[in-house]
């Protein structure tokens, strides 16, 4: 019972077109555009609010997966 399901922000660089919408409107400055693609630069600050996923026109950033919290 030591495994807790959680979510983390995931980037699909292949689909990212580098528009910067997720970066500009992230409330905690988790993201940056580097070489034309989004990158997670400050993961600790992420509150998993999901605004990046909601607004991303290209489905290239989303909350998903499981985090092991042993």
């Amino acid at each position: 019972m030591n495994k807790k399901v959680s979510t983390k922000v995931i980037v699909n660089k292949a689909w990212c077109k580098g528009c910067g919408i997720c970066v500009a409107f992230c409330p905690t400055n988790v993201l940056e555009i580097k070489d034309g693609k989004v990158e997670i630069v400050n993961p600790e600050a992420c509150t998993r609010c999901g605004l990046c996923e909601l607004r991303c026109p290209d489905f290239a950033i989303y909350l998903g997966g499981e985090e092991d919290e042993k």
Partner: protein
Amino acid sequence: MASNLVEKYYRMDKLPHIWCAGCTHGTSMNAVVRAIDKLGYNQDEVCIVSGIGCSSRATGYMDFNTLHTTHGRALAFATGIKMANPKLKVIVITGDGDATAIGGNHFIHACRRNIDITTIVFNNNIYGMTGGQYSPTTPTSSLGTTAPYGNIDPVFNICNVAAAAGATYVARGTAYHTQALINSIVKGLENKGFSVIEAVSDCPTYFGRRNKIGDAVEMMKRLKELSVNVKAAEKLPPEKLEGKIIIGEIKNETRPEYTDEYQNLIDRLKEEEK
């Protein structure tokens, strides 16, 4: 690699989509999918119909019964589908030019009939697919390739047209206010009748660049800044609403639905025959 939502509702082999960087049609398309997901519709029972233009490409990506029709005619095709099989949830995805210029007549008559179809108008204020010509919603004085000296045309207010023509649920949202847009689409789908949700969208490539509004982020900020909630707008004088985007629920009423009325007619004839 994509979210569970995307994997469930999209044709993964067709992604990524063809829309330009910063075009918010993808955001609006996903708002439609999130609304469908929220309502738990069976994909086999949903039919999505589009016309021609940037918006119309949505149907190719969405894993439902999808029909990509001719310019402006999506609603007429959708009307035939809904009449033939009223059990289908019929959704039309259209654009500002598609719905209100070439398809304007079909649009107002679908509103008038109050047939149970939910229409989402991706309004990016321009003809994008053909390279940036002015549409019925391009703001007056804006530039387009066919308005090189500034557009002299007055604009259509899509929601007001829909409400006046008889649509029973009418709302406006923007790609910036995504959650509110999703909620409006949910309400539109729940409405037993003709629903219109105008999704104000950004076209950085043709509208933004030519009109020197800036890039995708600047255009998105502008959506945020120009938007006024319908409740707040009611308290403001008209001059304060000049150039603003009024968002929220514009109309929500109940009126007999078209396919129900036709079924009543069939039942009545059957009864009389007895």
